[in-house]
């Protein structure tokens, strides 16, 4: 049993796949950075469908799925577009074949992406859905949309894309590492969360306290927290819009806030809600 296949099935089947992806030299769409509007079809199943070209063939009709970490192309379409040879066979589990391939040229609307990873799989649900809504050729997700600031509007039935410079990462490697460290018998340590900067305060919460927020137990001298007006006894409700209902959520919230950027803290003090601005500094 190869864990990759298991992983692939969960995330393809389930969430659409994680076989090795490739780093891309060309994350940006061709052309300039003007917004590109792409109409979508709202299927009877209430999925979004796009018309795409794969290696200059098509158009093909694919589902657009923000819940899919991997693109999928079915075997028939993969053969038509030269993604796989006639006798190409991938790995298989429970009778479902899986292969990891790269689309040399992927086009949707005015966008061309070169080197887009995909899995080739006859996804049972895509097949079943085809019978209801008409031919579907696959499914497009994270490796495509991560590259854009994307706005989805169901009223106009269109998505608007502007390249954002993000290069979709290779989650497979990360996940495989995590999986290998978690086979039966492994000792699994808690995750350590680190603030991105230095704030100069600490919080706590009694076990039997079920209300929102945490209580500030320490504000350090000369610290950003002190400069921002935070006081011991304040009940911290949110930090940069993130809920701080536990100590670990508070640490998590500070992990997203980059040093040098002012952040709003919402606290309750003497029964009144107030907003404070704190700018964390580089430190630890």
């Amino acid at each position, binding site marked *: 049993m190869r864990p990759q296949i298991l992983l692939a099935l969960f995330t393809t089947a389930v969430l659409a796949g994680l076989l090795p992806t490739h780093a891309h030299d060309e994350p940006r769409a061709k052309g300039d950075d003007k917004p590109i509007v792409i109409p979508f079809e709202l299927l009877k199943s209430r999925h979004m469908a796009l018309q795409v070209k794969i290696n200059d063939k098509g158009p093909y009709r694919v589902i657009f799925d923000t819940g899919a970490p991997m693109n999928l192309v079915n075997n028939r379409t993969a053969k038509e577009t030269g993604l796989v040879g006639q006798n190409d066979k991938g790995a298989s589990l429970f009778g479902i074949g899986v292969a990891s391939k790269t689309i040399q040229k992927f086009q949707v609307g005015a966008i061309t992406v070169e080197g887009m990873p995909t899995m080739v799989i006859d996804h049972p649900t895509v097949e079943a859905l085809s019978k*209801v809504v008409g031919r579907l050729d696959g499914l497009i997700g994270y490796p495509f949309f991560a590259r854009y600031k994307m706005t989805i509007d169901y009223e106009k039935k269109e998505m608007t894309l502007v390249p954002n410079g993000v290069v979709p990462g290779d989650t497979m490697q990360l996940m495989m590492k995590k999986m290998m460290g978690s086979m039966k018998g492994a000792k699994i340590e808690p995750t350590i969360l680190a603030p991105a900067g230095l704030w100069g305060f600490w919080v706590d919460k009694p076990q039997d306290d079920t209300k929102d927020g945490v209580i500030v137990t320490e504000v350090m001298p000369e610290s950003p927290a002190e400069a921002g007006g935070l006081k011991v006894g304040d009940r911290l409700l949110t930090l940069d819009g993130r809920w701080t209902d536990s100590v670990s959520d508070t640490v998590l919230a500070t992990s997203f806030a980059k040093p040098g950027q002012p952040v709003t803290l919402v606290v309750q003090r003497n029964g009144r809600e107030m907003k404070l601005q704190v700018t964390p500094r580089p430190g630890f």
Partner: protein
Amino acid sequence: MIRYCLVTVTIGLGMAFALKAAEPAAPAVEVPYRLIGTNHIMVRAKINGRGPFNLIMDTGAPAVIIPKFVAQKANAKPNDKQWADFESFQLEGGLKVEKVRARVEDIPQIEGMNSMPIAGVELHGVIGYELLARYRIQYDLSRDKLVFEPLAFEPPPLVPLGGDGASAIQTLGPIVNLAKALFEKPNYATQARGFAGIEYEEKEGEVRITRVIPGSPAAQAGLQSGDIIKALKTDTIASARDLHKALAKATVGSKWRFTIIRNGQEQEIVVELGKGL
């Protein structure tokens, strides 16, 4: 999460219910999200005042879907068609959504993900079309927030599809069991990194201490403003990045040997990390 769709839609046969359009002219709300270990976009929600629950933004799902254990925790009672109306639904960032309902169903995908150590968080469901379509939503993975802008628009309702999607989903059952057999249960516990009380600047390949918080572990150990951090234990430090990498597993109470340069002299100072942000 395409697998859900057929099942959900087919089982939800013939349900006529009207979703009221969102109130017009409500302002856009920034909703924090995390890109989790599976490259899913996860947001947090409080349902009926309980939670927060971890939900995946999923245009491949027809509705909000939560497994039974989550429905129980959220005190959401499904009707005989497996739909539960929420009394309140709030997304992190302050977005209150009226009249949200969820399909209550143990979907193998969520169970499977929760039996493998890949997501890094316990997952509690997905947010699909019924809710997503009520907003114009901006996704930008170069930022740490999504933007939800209410639409004055009543999305077309779900319709029965027919077909045999329900049987397709069953094929995942054995795979969930396989995952459970192969892996230790994921550990979602977290702890804060240890705290030193040092501010620094990074310049020309050096990390120089610019302030030591009075009374902090660093102050007690004798570190001073102006000290240049050359190494942490055996890791050479030439940038903030090096520092954060070296400290990635630094727990509260752990001891760290700082190699510093002060007045041209190399020195070693051991700091026992404490609690702090």
